[in-house]
């Protein structure tokens, strides 16, 4: 007892020193990692402002120098005014298409997910467990498999690959994005499960209908998960390039979403390596709002992914 009391201050001091060292090492590792994490993004932003000329012609390709020799807004100006794939002012058009798809998809998907999740979590009915098992099994089929069939199905309704009435393709894309959304109820259900059943039961004793319970009790409590679902379904169309590419088809460049359009600048039927800096400018334009939204709603995102993943 005596011994330990005497040695405590010395021991304490050496521990403090060790802590300071380990903290310094942690800072070092985190700073190095942060730099690695940031390099590609910094490079894209720098490329988007690059404004180099060789022999009077603009160089828009990937160049070997990391830092541009000259900066300017040429790429942004070109991006918004250029004609791509025969569509004048294609980029603003793609932006608008994506915004429309994202907003409608966000509303429909969030509504479907919430309604299914509520049923699965708080209502008791005959086929509940069967429904859950079936949705789980369907979810295990690779999405690409059904993607082609969805294309054919929409095409037979005139809602995809339609060159005569191109706006219908956008309706088809919204349908394709949001129709299956209700099957992705698991995360929201995990969240609803945490809301105590006693709350629902006591409301029932007070004569509340299930509809009233949903509107008056569940929805106000579900704000984090609503924000999470809305965030996910809103950002989806900005990020997806493959589904949109297949559904709308290469024949209708005026209906593309911004991701399909930007991807096609580099890899489409008329790839142009000189468009890389314009592609980079487009990337910055798309990333800015999405990333800002994400950073603001980070808390809800974390809540959502943890609710869905670590239950049990």
């Amino acid at each position, binding site marked *: 007892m005596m011994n330990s009391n005497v040695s405590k201050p010395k021991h304490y001091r050496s521990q403090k020193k060790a*802590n300071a060292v380990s*903290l310094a090492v*942690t*800072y070092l590792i*985190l700073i190095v990692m*942060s730099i690695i*994490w*940031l*390099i*590609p993004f910094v*490079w894209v932003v720098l490329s988007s402002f690059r404004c180099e000329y060789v022999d009077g012609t603009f160089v828009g*390709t*990937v160049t*070997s*120098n990391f830092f541009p020799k000259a900066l300017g807004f040429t790429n942004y100006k070109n991006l918004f005014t250029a004609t791509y794939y025969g569509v004048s002012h294609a980029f603003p058009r793609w932006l608008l298409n994506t915004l429309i798809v994202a907003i409608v998809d966000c509303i429909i998907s969030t509504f479907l997910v919430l*309604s*299914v999740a509520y049923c699965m979590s708080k209502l008791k009915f005959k086929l*509940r467990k069967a429904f859950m*098992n079936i949705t789980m099994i*369907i979810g*295990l*089929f*690779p999405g*690409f*498999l*059904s993607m*082609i*069939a969805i294309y*054919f*199905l929409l095409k*037979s309704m005139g809602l995809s690959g339609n060159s005569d009435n191109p706006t219908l393709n956008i309706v088809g894309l919204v349908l394709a994005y949001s*129709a*299956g*959304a*209700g*099957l992705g109820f698991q995360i929201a259900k995990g969240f609803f499960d945490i809301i105590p059943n006693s709350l629902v039961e006591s409301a029932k004793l007070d004569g509340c*209908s*299930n*509809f009233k319970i*949903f509107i008056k009790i569940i929805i106000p409590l579900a704000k984090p998960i609503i924000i999470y679902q809305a965030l996910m379904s809103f950002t989806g169309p900005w*990020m997806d*390039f*493959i589904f949109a590419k297949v559904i709308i088809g290469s024949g209708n460049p005026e209906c593309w979403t911004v*991701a399909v359009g930007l*991807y096609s600048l*580099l890899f489409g039927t008329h790839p142009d390596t000189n468009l890389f800096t314009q*592609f980079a400018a487009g990337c910055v334009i*798309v*990333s800015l709002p*999405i990333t800002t939204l*994400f*950073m603001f709603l*980070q808390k809800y*995102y974390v809540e959502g*992914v*943890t609710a869905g*993943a*670590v*239950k*049990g």
Partner: protein
Amino acid sequence: MAPSIKSAPINKVKKDNFFVRFGRGIGEWFTNFGKRFADGSIGTKLSHFIFGAGNFYHKQYIKGTMFLVLQILIILFLVLCPSVNGTPYGYKALANLSLSNVTEGGDFDPNTGAFTQGSNCMLMVLFGFVTIAVIIIYIILWFKSIQSSYKADMDIKVGKKPTTFIEDLKELLDSKFHVLMLTPTCIAALVFTVLPTIFMISLAFSTYNQQDMDAQMTTLFHWNGFHNFVAVFTGDGTLGMEIKNRFFPVLGWTLVWAILATVTCYFGGIILALLINKKGLKGKKIFRTIFILTIAVPQFISLLAVRNILGEYGPVNSLLQNLGWTTGPIGFLGLNAADNEYLAKVMVVIINLWVGIPYTMLMTSGILMNIPSDLYEAATVDGASKTKMFFKITLPYVIFVTTPYLISSFVGNINSFNTIFLLTGGGPTYVGYQAGGTDLLVTWLYKVTIDQGSYNTGAVIGIFTFMITATITLVTYRRSKAYNEEDTFQ
């Protein structure tokens, strides 16, 4: 489904075998059916033939009209066989499902200039399935109509009035709320998820191999049983030797990739979370924001950026050459056929860390802070070192809590399309083969179907992918607490 006996708690009432319950269910169902016909009023009896007859009998006119209109519409659909692009729905579509009576088309008559349109087998199969779905809906409506009439009979028997339309609507908002809430999803999912999936599965049993997706109006194919599955071993399918020679290497790499990607991102994420959450560290929020960038920025942007940085003309290769370390560009990502396959494989796993670590970091941050601190205090008293505490307390705790996440991220990695497609495009390719060195089953599936139009082989690959993910998920999921205690948790 009955819980497996091993994991069932002893005091739980043992449920009957699934088949026993299924058999009993069918028995009861037939008894009920007979009972309704025998006991029911004239209206109920008539409802067996004319939808809504019982409702009219009980003066529930709105409901009865709805049933009747639906019945007439469906029967018209089945009998009149409306057609799209020359391919009919209805009973003709059912007959077409056999694909035995197809005509070749696509010829121009030189005299009249008329174009004879051939059968479109793809639409024939699709419409056949749609018709089957409509028939199923018809049967469901049939039961609902009988049930609704019988319920009114019973109400009268006990001295109540049959429910009015308004009361039915009110019921939809309360005791039948799930019907109202689930119907939109069920219909949408049936049309846009279930039907397409069944359709594509069926193509695995066909000869459908169409090069040009938009020229499908003259497509002819027929059923060929398990031929395409056998072709994986014999190589005589539509893809030729590719499916035989490349299937197992791609499958092997898919599994290796999924394991490596899951494990590296998982432990990387835990370590990063530990570092960021270290006591006394300042700027936690800034660090976290930086790492979350790879989640927030669309992958087609971030991964294509990396692809170009590491590309032939990109800054990395020119830096290496300026430093004199290499003489020519290094094919990090296997974008050229001559590039080293193993380098490309290592690179995608490493670059995937950049994308994947932040997810686990976010996920485990909260968990790490929730580990009961008395565990650590006890360990400190016992004189355990920090490393020992990490392996004996932190890691087991985190793994225990995040098992469902581990499973889902493993399945997610098997289907990790973006990483491979955007970084390497599946390369380096081999001469004569679609599937390259880093191709996963999903990216190969994409190439085979979208690029090549071999829908039957693509479907076979998809079914195998499903079988792998389903086995892994079902085996691990049914053992997990989340499944077995789903009810107790609520």
